[in-house]
């Protein structure tokens, strides 16, 4: 029976080639998108998994709540927190380990003492307990010796890069920061890419020195702390002791109320509020968003199938009637139709696999992640495909099967099944649903494109074009060479201006401090501090509204503030602020100027209150404004001079434009995704529409012929055939508008600088959908209307 059903199914699919192709095309594209989305989500969900104690591992994070309602949070903790935690929570925590991120120059000499390798590396100062918390795979050595200073652990890849072969690495040593030598005591296996801490070089925490080692008031996002919970301890039971802990240690009252929380390891990758060392998070919100889009795509493809199948059902009514009087049970007919749907879905799945494989390189590129479409490596993909096939086949096959098997045999045999029994009402509803989804995606895409354009073109308060940011070392010897560097680089042709600073006006590197304005009492909010020399304003093109730039100085003497700071302090006239005293964490100076507001964050966030001052010990970046025509040569010259001035360091540079663009990386990815998915959903919907109009045209051939004989013009006939489709798409637009409005305004609320929700994208989406409908439908209806009337009528 099954074999026969299958045979009949394939013959039927072959007979109705157009519908089969439309269905397979739609289903396979929809399925391919679903498989890709699944693979992506699967990859994202695999972060930080596979550790023995993963359920008991937590990261300690910090928060500050301010009186004005602002909250600030950090992935880092004050440096004294780890030892204090170890001491006070010994009953609840098995292990506590600090991990400190740093960057430095690694130098390796060969046997003869010649320099073999000099490179800038990201390193982590880690306590040995860290390796009790995380059971990394050890290839050589063990963690114990890390308690001794000047010891290091490398990953396999780094050890191979440094010493040729990781097997020879243990016992060898390298020089770090032109200062200390570190001996390799162990090699661990490379950490997978889906890890929130990209550890490659581990240095003994004993070597870590910082003047803030005992200060609770200072907190850097580079100092994280991980803990391993004792077995049987409930993490919620730790909040009360933690509150006591905070009260005990934070004796100096800052403006913000400090707090610490335990964040589960499984949450780190999904919480953008705190971030992590790997620098990528995937909010669950976006994962759900992708799931919804996948469901949309699949639903549209299934609706195509249902519509075409029910439309076709009329032409199959005779077969159904005959089968019934031959003694077929309704159940058997349902099984037969589902067999057809399943074979179609399976064929679509094969095509989907091909499409997935073809789309994968683009996907890898877009997300910059390592994925492979390999069901042996990731058996879950196989399970997903099986589940997808079953769901799609049932979703799209069950309703038509139910309708068709329900035909009354007496009517079916006489071909008297009315067009409506094929579910014309439902079919219309489904088309409306399908197009509503399509229009929602079109509108969403238009808004995303507009918002991205708005952000790109919005003035950010300074001129970021043709500015190169070159890292510079800042130690006592290097500082003496700053003047030489500056004067030599100013002579490079094409260099217009240069400044030494901590970071550019807009930077992901922000420092906040307590401060007092014109009084001894601290303000109830913090100020964002920036450090740069006297050329900072000219180089970045910052405009003054009052006062002047500060004069040349190596220490903090004068401050320049921004308008927002004055606004927050209720100083209406910028002139009034000039000459007033500003005290920022103990360093006081005079305000000499007020600059126009500029964006110091991405446009998702507002502008912070800012104070800028000179401070030679804070210069880590040299910003060079170049003539845009001479960038290439200028950069080469700068690198040459730099290497000459700092021979023991490694040159690295970037462009301000790229830095700013990188803030919007995730929006760019989202924009691309939306464009692709909107394209796909439009395609699926419209081939479905084409199938439906083909069917209607075929069904109404006789009517068209009679009308033609009665004198209807081609235009009138096309109008008649198109009318209901245009109406359906119009109604779909009306349904889609409020939905799209809700989604779009929610998304835009995430941006401080955003476009207004205007009517135009809605109107454009309507025009696009109506025009494409008109074209799709007319292609087919024109043919029907122009057909020779005699051909249709002579068989009667």
């Amino acid at each position, binding site marked *: 029976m099954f074999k026969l059903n299958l045979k009949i199914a394939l013959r*039927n699919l072959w007979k109705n080639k157009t519908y089969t192709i439309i269905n397979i095309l739609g289903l396979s594209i929809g399925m391919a998108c679903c498989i890709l989305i699944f693979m992506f989500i699967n990859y994202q969900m695999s972060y930080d998994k596979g550790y023995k104690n993963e359920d008991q591992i937590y990261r300690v994070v910090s928060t500050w709540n301010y009186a004005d309602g602002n909250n600030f949070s950090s992935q880092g903790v004050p440096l004294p927190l780890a030892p204090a935690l170890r001491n006070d929570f010994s009953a609840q925590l098995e292990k506590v380990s600090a991990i400190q991120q740093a960057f430095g120059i690694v130098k390796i000499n060969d046997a003869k003492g010649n320099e073999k390798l000099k490179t800038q590396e990201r390193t982590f100062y880690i306590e040995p307990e860290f390796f009790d918390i995380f059971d990394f795979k050890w290839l050589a050595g063990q963690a114990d010796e890390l308690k001794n200073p000047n010891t290091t652990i490398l990953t396999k890849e780094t050890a191979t890069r440094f010493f040729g072969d990781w097997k020879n690495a243990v016992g060898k040593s390298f020089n770090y920061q032109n200062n200390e030598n570190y001996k390799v005591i162990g090699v661990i296996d490379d950490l997978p890419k889906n890890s929130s801490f990209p550890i490659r070089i581990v240095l003994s925490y004993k070597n870590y020195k910082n003047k803030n080692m005992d200060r609770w008031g200072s907190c850097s996002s580079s100092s994280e702390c991980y803990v391993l919970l004792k077995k049987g301890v409930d993490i919620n039971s730790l909040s009360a002791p933690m509150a006591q802990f905070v009260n005990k240690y934070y004796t100096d009252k800052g403006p913000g109320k400090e707090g610490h929380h335990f964040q589960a390891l499984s949450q780190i990758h999904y919480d953008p509020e705190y971030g992590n060392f790997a620098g990528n998070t995937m909010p669950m919100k976006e994962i759900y968003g992708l799931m919804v889009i996948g469901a949309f795509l699949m639903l549209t493809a299934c609706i195509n199938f249902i519509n075409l199948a029910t439309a076709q059902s009329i032409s199959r009514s*005779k077969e159904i009637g005959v089968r019934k*009087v031959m*003694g077929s*049970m309704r159940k058997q007919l349902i099984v037969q139709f589902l067999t057809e749907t399943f074979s179609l879905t399976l064929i679509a799945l094969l095509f989907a696999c091909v499409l997935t494989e073809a789309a994968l390189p683009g996907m890898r590129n877009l997300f910059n992640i390592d994925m492979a479409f390999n069901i042996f490596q990731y058996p879950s993909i196989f399970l997903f495909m099986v589940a997808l096939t079953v769901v799609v086949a049932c979703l799209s096959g069950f309703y038509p099967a139910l309708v068709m098997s329900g035909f009354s045999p*007496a009517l079916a*045999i006489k071909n008297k099944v009315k067009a409506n029994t094929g579910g014309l009402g439902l079919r219309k509803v489904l088309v409306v649903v399908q197009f509503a989804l399509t229009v929602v995606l079109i509108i969403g895409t238009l808004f995303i494109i507009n918002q991205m354009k708005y952000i790109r073109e919005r003035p950010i308060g300074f001129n970021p074009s043709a500015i190169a940011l070159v890292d510079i070392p800042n130690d006592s010897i290097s500082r003496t060479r700053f003047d030489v560097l500056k004067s030599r680089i100013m002579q490079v042709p094409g260099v217009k201006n240069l400044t030494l600073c901590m970071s550019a006006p807009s930077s992901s590197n922000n420092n906040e401090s307590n401060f007092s304005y014109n009084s001894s009492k601290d303000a109830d909010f913090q100020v964002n501090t920036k450090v740069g020399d006297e050329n900072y304003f000219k180089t970045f093109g910052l405009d003054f509204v009052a006062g002047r730039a500060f004069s040349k100085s190596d220490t903090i003497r004068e401050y320049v503030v921004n308008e927002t700071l004055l606004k927050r302090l209720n100083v209406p006239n910028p002139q009034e602020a000039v000459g007033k005293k500003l005290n920022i964490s103990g360093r006081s100076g005079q305000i000499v100027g007020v600059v126009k507001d500029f964006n110091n964050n991405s446009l998702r966030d507002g502008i912070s209150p800012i104070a800028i001052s000179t401070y030679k010990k804070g210069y880590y970046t040299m910003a060079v404004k170049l003539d845009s025509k001479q960038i290439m040569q200028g950069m080469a010259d700068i690198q040459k001079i730099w290497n000459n001035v700092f021979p023991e360091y490694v040159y690295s540079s970037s462009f301000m434009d790229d830095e700013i663009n990188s803030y919007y990386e995730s929006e760019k990815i989202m924009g691309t995704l939306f464009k692709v998915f909107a394209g796909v959903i439009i395609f699926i919907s419209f081939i479905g529409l084409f199938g439906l109009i083909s069917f209607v045209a075929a069904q109404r051939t006789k009517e068209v012929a009679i009308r033609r004989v009665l004198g209807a013009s081609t235009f009138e006939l096309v109008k008649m055939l198109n009318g209901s489709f245009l109406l359906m798409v119009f109604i779909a637009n009306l349904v889609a508008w409020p939905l799209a409005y809700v989604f779009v305004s929610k998304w835009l609320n995430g941006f401080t600088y955003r476009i207004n929700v205007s009517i135009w994208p809605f109107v454009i989406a309507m025009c696009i959908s109506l025009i494409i409908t008109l074209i799709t439908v007319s292609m087919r209806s024109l043919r029907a209307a122009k057909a020779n009337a005699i051909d249709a009528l002579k068989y009667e």
Partner: protein
Amino acid sequence: MIKLENIEKYYANKGVKNYVLRHVTTQINKGEFVSIMGPSGAGKSTLLNIMGMLEEPTYGSYFFNEEDVTHLGERKKIELYRNHIGFVFQAYHLIDEMTVYENIEAPLLYKNVSSGERKSRIADLLDRFNIVAKKDLFPNQLSGGQQQLVGIARALAAQPAIILADEPTGNLQSVQAEEIMELFKKLNREDGITIVQVTHSEKNAGYGNRIITIEDGVIKEDLKIG
């Protein structure tokens, strides 16, 4: 075999009852070959459909093999189709996607006949109707008469007690029509299959042994012949 008691059938349209059958009472015995005749729209086909349980009467009762089947559930009805009733249609109604062989096999599959038994029964039917050479062809590759032969073979495959035929020769040329009628006569005589056919032609009716004439939904004449 078939007993109809006071069968009425009407369609209500805006409160007006359009009667198709009125007070039809008759009995068809095992082994009879009955022809139902009458002008167009007299209710012949409706009567046949009621006999085949494709339609239900508005009033009256219907007994099939002494059993009241007036309002029968789907399951029971299908049980009767599988084992007792075979249908032959004017437009043959073969399934286009199936070969001749598969068309004949279909009712046997629904009846869960074993594979070996199926093969021998189909081979027997193909042989008897001289269509062995056509078994792998599709319906649209056959002439009308050949298609109707396949249709009858299919109806006979399940070895029914009665065949209900709605103008079985209506679409055929006279030579082919004669062949079909001869076949019916032979089946009735030699195999004892009860046959009820609807027909327009006096000549075709002559092959049977009883003619029921219907006019305006009422039995006008019930004539035994031969």
